């Protein structure tokens, strides 16, 4: 898999930046959160790519295999995924409440409503 070189990482960076772009450029609150999950998932992909060793197998030990991929990034990302879903859930709960009290989930409309009162 050495044909990949660093190219693999570059694609992952591109993914991260697409997610980041959605978060900062889009005005819809739900869309922002979708972007946030995209951003985070891409960071997870980066971590997991770091743990891969060419020709290795999953770090569940069996007889007759000596080369395993690095389990540590997997552990870190398991934790990070949980953190990610926790953030998403809380963010969406906030969006629901914002919709109920402002009547909209668009950033500029919320700003307009805040300024008017």
């Amino acid at each position, binding site marked *: 898999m050495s044909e*990949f070189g660093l190219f693999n990482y570059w694609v992952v960076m591109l993914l991260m930046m697409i997610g980041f772009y959605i978060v900062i450029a889009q005005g819809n609150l739900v869309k922002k959160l979708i972007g946030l999950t995209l951003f985070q998932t891409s960071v997870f992909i980066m971590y997991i790519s770091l743990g891969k060793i060419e020709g290795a197998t999953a770090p569940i030990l069996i007889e007759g295999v000596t080369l395993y991929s690095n*389990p540590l990034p997997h552990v870190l990302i398991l934790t990070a995924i949980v953190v990610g879903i926790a953030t998403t859930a809380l963010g969406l709960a906030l969006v*629901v409440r914002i919709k109920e009290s402002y009547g909209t989930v668009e950033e500029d409309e919320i700003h307009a409503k805040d300024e008017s009162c």
Partner: protein
Amino acid sequence: MNMETVINMVLLSLLVVTAIAIVRIKDLFAAAMLAGIYGLLSASFFVMMDAVDVAFTEASVGAGISTLLMLTTLAMTGRFEKISGNYRPRLALVLVALTGALLIYGTLDMPAFGTAAAPVHEHVAPRYLNDSYAEIGIPNAVTSVLASYRGFDTFGEVVVIFTAGIGVLALLMRAEKPTPRTQTPTASMHEHMVLRIVAKMLIPLILLFGLYVQFHGEYGPGGGFQAGVIFASAFFLYSMLFGLSEARKVVNHVVVQILAALGVLLYGSVGIVSLMNGKNFLDYSALSADAVHGQHLGILAIELGVGITVTTVMIIIFFAFSGRNQIEGEKD
């Protein structure tokens, strides 16, 4: 070029295409679905990267739970994004380009992908692979590291999930309301007999599978978190097909909250027990005369704690969201 490389490249390209489609699409329902696909694709990529445990979790969380939550939210907030001209995507684009350029710059000194001699694989990781079987006695190195070597991170993870449950509850909780008797719980699923029958067959299967995942985590991919999500998904299915009030009858929300707290406390008390036995916090070898056996017991106990908390918190979150949804619906 072997097949694995081809699959990797295809998966990566599909990820990029999906991400771009999400940027462009204005239909938020579609965007949420594509985000689900994105989760599924990245999970497949994780399998290719040998991260089976992570793939397991990402598939259930990224493609399952978070998509469902987004859809529930969208059902309340509206399907379409407003198209407005007064955003400045150019500024954002510049910022993103700068960040991206810095990242690319940072990769230039990184060891090439897949190199076995990279520093990542050298210092800390070999011990986990070489000694974990002797020290902890289970074949899944990921579970060993997760539950024992870095068990405190996992404690933190359970607390994070618990925090999210508390947060969602604090935000979306309604005062006790009389359950509407007039509304038939099935109204929105339009009498899907087939679905309900199939679901009734599936739910026991799903629960059984959850149990298997819960207790098989030491030998294969799985563990408390994944099992918790699977358990919870059975309840999601039930509540989606038979109505929320029916599902609330099955799981009492007070009991669910108490269980969520007990899961965290179970994890913590394993740590306290090891303190009492004169070892450090979360040192499972204190749980039994035989150190490896103690590790085994400890991992079993904390995975159970994780499983209980995750199941219940997921149920709390999902029910809180759909509870809001139903009330919104009833207003009409």
